[in-house]
């Protein structure tokens, strides 16, 4: 087992107390290596959203251990001090909708994260342009989000998720609004980026079109995960 990527062991999350307590996660085990893209699939109410929030350091688990890279994040009630800085520096987010800021151009949308972290504007923009080139949208660098197609917007959102070179990316339904061709293109890009930047990527999805592309899939049901080998099909 690698000591990088993401590793969680016996992760539990309980909401409420006493008789009304609900166990959303009942002991989740998961491991994603750098450069790997895995799928996370589960029906509504399975605990998928809770798991994603715990992975994204937005909520804290009740029990269990989680490490990102070599860093312990949670360990049975213990947690790192600054979860916000962790989110900023170690975790990249890609959402179902691109959520681009409408009044910033494409470059500034991507450069926003390093700027938030206090990096010089010129360096932040340079990083952004490099990623836009890698994602083949550099020609729209000065465009406003409203001028982009759906696929272009999602690629810009991917660039924003990658711009801080996080060891982990959490992608929540990133292909839901896209047609098959664009959805598969996004997955190809994620695989490429995972490989190029040694990033561990978890893709939460219901999208039947992309499920066959994963080499490994985690199913979650009633707060427990089950690992399954995927087809790992490559669509050109």
């Amino acid at each position, binding site marked *: 087992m690698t000591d990088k990527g993401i590793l969680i062991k016996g992760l539990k999350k309980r909401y409420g107390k006493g008789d009304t307590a609900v166990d959303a996660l009942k002991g989740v085990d998961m491991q994603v290596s750098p450069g790997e893209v895995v799928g996370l699939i589960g029906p509504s109410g399975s605990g998928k*959203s809770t798991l994603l*929030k715990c992975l*994204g350091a*937005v*909520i804290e688990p009740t029990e269990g251990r989680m490490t990102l890279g070599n860093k312990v994040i949670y360990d049975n009630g213990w947690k790192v001090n600054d979860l*916000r*800085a962790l*989110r*900023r*520096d170690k975790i990249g*987010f890609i*959402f*179902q*909708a691109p*959520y681009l*800021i*409408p*009044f*910033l151009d494409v470059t*500034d949308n991507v450069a*926003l*994260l390093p*700027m*938030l*972290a*206090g990096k010089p*504007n010129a360096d932040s923009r340079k990083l952004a342009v490099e990623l836009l080139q890698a994602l083949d949208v550099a020609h729209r660098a000065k465009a406003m989000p409203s001028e982009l197609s759906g696929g272009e917007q999602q690629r810009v959102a991917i660039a*924003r998720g990658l711009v801080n070179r996080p060891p982990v990316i959490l992608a929540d339904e990133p292909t839901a609004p896209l047609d098959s061709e664009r959805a598969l293109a996004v997955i190809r890009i994620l695989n490429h980026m995972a490989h190029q930047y040694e990033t561990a990527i978890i893709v939460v999805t219901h999208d039947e079109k992309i499920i066959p592309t994963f080499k490994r899939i985690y199913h979650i049901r009633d707060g427990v995960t089950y690992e399954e080998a995927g087809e790992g099909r490559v669509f050109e």
Partner: protein
Amino acid sequence: MKIKNTFIFSIQALSGYPARTLLVLLAMSMGVASVMLLTSLGEGAKRYVNREFTSLGTHILFVLPGRSETTGGPPPMLGQTPRDLTLEDALSLTRNPSIGKVAPIVVGSAPVSWNGKDREVTILGTTADMFEIRQLAMGQGRFLPVQDPSRGSGVAVIGNKIKKEIFGNRSALGEWIRIQDRRFQVIGVLEKKGQSLGLDMSDLVIIPVASAQSLFNTSSLFRIMLEANNRNDVQAAKEAVLRTIKERHDNEDDITVITQDAILSTFDRILTALTFTVAGIAAISLAVAGILIMNVMLISVSQRKSEIGLLKAIGATGSQVLWVFLTEAAILSMIGAILGIFIAYSGMVVIMRLFPDFPVHIPAWSVAASVFTAQLTGILFGVLPARRAAALDPVLALSRR
């Protein structure tokens, strides 16, 4: 995020939502402009009154029959009848070394006719000294001659408006007019002059004081207007008037002496209070603008939930989000204030064009106060929406499920 970046981000956000920005700017600028314009009118009124009084000279005193305990206030209108001021009272004042010129005044209204034209006109009975005390100027002819005030004569000086109405383009000099049943020869026409101290100097006829007393069948005076030798003698002149008249009136204090300074300071107090009152009323519009900023920002927070949620999800702190919204509020109120100043000065130019005699002036304190109040209300009312934005849960904000 660096301060510069927060500022740039806020500017970009404001230009990204132009309708919202323009509405808030309009409200804020109108608030600032109304405070400045209303205070400028109050200040203009103060300057106008000041100018009117100082145009008479700075060492004028008014003697009124009746006693008033309040300096500058009117003499009693009801109750015991005060002892009348007489021409002899006025003449007795001329002997005092601190008093320069004395003009007894009798005022009444009488029909004036010439060549079949007839009109009711204000008649002012006085002496030659009035010319210098009121700083009058002649358009044609001369003013009343220097003569014994107790002797009347059939001469009259007419105002410019009377001259035009009765004589048209003809010369009035040497013509005989009839006032009531007496004949007066016109010896002068006053230069065109507007209202002064509530008396339209172009719409009256000036005759010798004794003639006016005879015309109106009275031995009393309406006022005595006098001029101290210089500004330093005003107080001495006032005391001399009180002392002299008291001696003449059986040791009774039954007159009121008002100095120009007292009148000016009374007007100043009234008009300052008025200025602050209208400024206060106008400041309410600034508060309303502040509330509008709050409402628009609150709506904006809910409209921009996904943007705020994204910022927080990718690692922006609550305080970074708070500062973005506060900076937006501060920029809006600052630009609104600058626009307001521009509107106020434009309004002032329009007022100056429409009323060239009115010395409208925007005081510096009102510029500073309205800009400060605009900033304060903008930021104060921006705090609540900013705090709400900062407290937004990123997951809920971005959740579409």
